[in-house]
């Protein structure tokens, strides 16, 4: 435990975690973790998937109880680890990744739930609305609190959850990867809200994968690895590389994409995929060529139509016009099945709901597209299936004790590698990647980038999209910026900057003006 955080300011400690351990069966999710969050500051907790961040936050929010160790909040030791006690007695609130709101009920009811004014059995409805509006106003949001929560986008729902914790007078607010569902603009708005909370003296714990936001927001950074506390810094004194090294337990080489490997082919070779005037729900008149071995990165806000474009190219959604050609042949998939037959692969953005088969083993997940190779006399040969999956898992360095294990027991990065193995089995000509590293930790990200690179070196064309703009700039050869369903411009990634792309994506400028 190097460089343990010594809160230099003599301010009171809001949350004091001491010797905390949590055991799940044979797995030690937290191992003797100690850290302190000084009152009125933002303490970031970083770590790879499976490092124990989420478990720690769950314990602090009372959703799990520790096997050993103590938690002290504002000088009072926590005796009962349940959510209601943490909230009402210790005033610790959680803003979880998966927002749990009553979708059919109004914003006001959701915010004031458990803190309704008036008599307990018959709360004063007018006052509920009024107080909810006031709390939202404090967060700089003037939304009608009578609207049902289900009508709101993810970012606004998140504000509702934050307002709810204010309604319960929370002194400590825990954010668990709050920006994972937000666009850059929405994230920026959240950061303003967080700044405001800090000014009001609220103590915050902030869990994230993303380095820039941790540096933007936090006062201290703590790193967990394999359930242990492995490092702490004052953010002002920290170097990003040190934090990354602590997270992965080794030094990491930078170079998502080796400069100079950009295929100069984009104009010379015949395009692998030719898209002309493609139209569908959410996008219009998209024209783009992708050369073999080229990576086109589609940038844009979440509602720019980029996700819909990717799905339509794969045949998952209907197209209403335009044409596509794959290696010169007409390509008009009516379903994913047609696309798969044409050796087009698609890694969906929502891994949990669209990618994995959650009740099945790693082996079955990997082999989902190639079962026919393992059929004899109409029967699946389980052993041959396993052998094949073992081989793929080893090739892509999927960390799994055995491929017979359930895929949900793997970390996000390893699930993604298993899904990549699934799609590589059809020897794809074109890969469509939506948020290829969402929920993937730093170490696995680097491995995924290397895998993508080896694919493009073999001539696979890639159509990728990501809300992580630096990542998209790093892995792409050219960037197609979408706004309001249309491609605004296509520029070489080497010449593009984050600021320039964002300006175009938000419709503020075109690239030419920025250049």
């Amino acid at each position, binding site marked *: 435990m190097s460089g343990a955080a010594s809160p230099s300011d003599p301010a009171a400690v809001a949350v004091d975690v001491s010797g905390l351990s949590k055991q799940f069966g044979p797995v030690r999710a937290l191992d003797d973790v100690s850290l302190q969050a000084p009152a009125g500051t933002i303490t970031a907790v970083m770590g790879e998937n499976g490092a124990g961040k989420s478990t720690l936050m769950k314990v602090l929010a009372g959703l799990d109880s520790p096997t050993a160790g103590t938690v002290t909040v504002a000088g009072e030791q926590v005796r009962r680890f349940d959510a209601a006690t943490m909230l009402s007695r210790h005033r610790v609130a959680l803003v979880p990744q998966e927002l749990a709101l009553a979708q059919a009920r109004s914003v006001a009811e959701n915010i004031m739930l458990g803190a309704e004014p008036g008599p307990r059995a018959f709360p004063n409805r007018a006052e509920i609305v009024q107080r909810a509006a006031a709390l939202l106003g404090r967060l700089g949001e003037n939304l009608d609190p009578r609207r049902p929560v289900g009508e709101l986008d993810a970012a606004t729902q998140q504000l509702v959850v934050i307002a709810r914790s204010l309604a319960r007078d929370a002194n400590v607010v825990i954010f668990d990867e709050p920006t994972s569902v937000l666009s850059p603009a929405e994230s920026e708005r959240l950061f303003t809200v967080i700044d405001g909370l800090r000014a009001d003296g609220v103590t915050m714990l902030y869990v994230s994968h993303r380095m820039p936001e941790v540096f933007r927001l936090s006062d201290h950074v703590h790193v967990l690895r394999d359930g242990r506390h492995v490092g702490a810094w004052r953010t002002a004194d920290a170097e990003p590389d040190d934090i990354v090294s602590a997270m992965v337990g080794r030094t990491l080489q930078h170079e998502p994409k080796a400069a100079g490997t950009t295929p100069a082919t984009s104009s010379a070779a015949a395009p692998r995929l030719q898209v002309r005037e493609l139209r569908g729900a959410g996008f219009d008149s998209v024209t783009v060529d992708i050369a073999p071995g080229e990576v086109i990165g589609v940038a844009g806000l979440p509602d720019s139509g980029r996700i819909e474009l990717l799905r339509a190219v794969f045949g998952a959604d209907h197209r209403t016009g335009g044409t596509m050609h794959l290696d010169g042949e007409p390509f008009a998939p009516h*379903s994913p099945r047609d*696309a798969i037959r044409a050796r087009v692969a698609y890694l969906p953005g929502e891994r949990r709901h669209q990618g994995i088969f959650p009740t099945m083993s790693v082996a079955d997940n990997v082999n989902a*597209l190639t*079962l026919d190779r393992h059929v004899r006399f109409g029967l*699946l040969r389980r052993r041959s299936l396993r052998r094949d999956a073992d081989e793929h898992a080893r090739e892509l360095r999927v960390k799994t*004790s055995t491929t017979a294990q359930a895929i949900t027991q793997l970390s996000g990065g390893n699930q993604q590698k298993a899904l990549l193995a699934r799609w590589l089995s059809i020897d794809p000509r074109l890969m469509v990647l939506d948020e290829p590293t969402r929920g993937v930790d730093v170490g696995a990200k680097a491995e995924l980038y290397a895998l993508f690179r080896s694919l493009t070196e073999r001539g696979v064309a890639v159509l990728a999209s990501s809300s992580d703009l630096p990542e998209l700039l790093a892995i792409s050869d050219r960037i197609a910026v979408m706004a309001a369903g249309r491609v605004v411009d296509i520029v070489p990634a080497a010449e593009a900057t984050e600021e320039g792309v964002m300006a175009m994506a938000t419709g503020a400028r075109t690239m030419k003006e920025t250049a």
Partner: protein
Amino acid sequence: MTQLATDEPTTTPETASAPSPLQRFLHAREASTLLALVLLFVVGTVVAPGFVGADNFLSVGQQISQLGIMAVGVTFVIINAEIDLSVGSVYALGAVSCGLLITEGLAWPLAALGGVAAGAVAGFLNGAMTVGFGIPSFIVTLGTLSLYRGVALLLSDGAPISLSSDQPGVAEFNLLGQGELFGLFPMQLVIFALIAVLGMVVLSRSRYGFNSYAVGGSAEAARLCGINAGHVKIAAFTISGTLAGLSGVLGLSFLSYVQGVTGTGMELTVISAVIIGGAALFGGSGTMLGTVIGVAFIGVLQNILNLRGISSFWQTVATGAVIILAVAADTWMRKRSGKR
């Protein structure tokens, strides 16, 4: 959670030791159900006179066969993350159709096929409506639970259908439900065993079984892998209807008698057996072996209560308690092993 709390940078499949077959068995969901069944056998041996013995076991086997055949079908539906509440009514529909065809003078094998086909059509319609209208199968089959029952009552005109053994072919037809293979094994039990084994092979070793688990686990992920989730589900409902129809035909053959109200409430016992056997209503999990054990559990429980001369009202109470206990025990064990 995760298994990554080790210091090894990478654990490849080669370096880690795979669990032994015994460990795998002990972790399997069937193990706990099987253990419960064994315990029940021990209890039966102690408290129920006449429980131990080939005669009693074979008669239990006979009694659970119709239930078991239907449970095999419903297992497919539940693994596909759907539910079939109509099987009790389809049972009646199959039996009444077959009975009418025989009374009309049709050769018994064709009449039997007719009963099975009626079930297949009913099941197909359940699936086609669920997928086609995009509404929950709970609603569709709640509707057809009543609708098919009504059709069975209309066909039989509310009157019982009795097969007279004077009629040609009826004696042979009755062998389906009453006969014994080698003069020992009840024919119904033999048919149940064949169907269970077939179901087991289809579920665990066929492309269709694979697709069922995939669709039940995540229909959208299955679609993006080129699997036609709608077809897979419709097929599951059709299997369920077919087997319910077959079960009805066996019921008619066993009793030589059927009414429009036959099989009322049977769907609940069938679904109970599947759930005791470990299939989750969320879909994507469950095995045929589990279902067979679940069916046996219900059969043995009722047998013990019968032998002790306990009223059938208590049997109904016991079945209900067992369902809750089985799922509660399973949930508790999952929590303990840290899987979520």
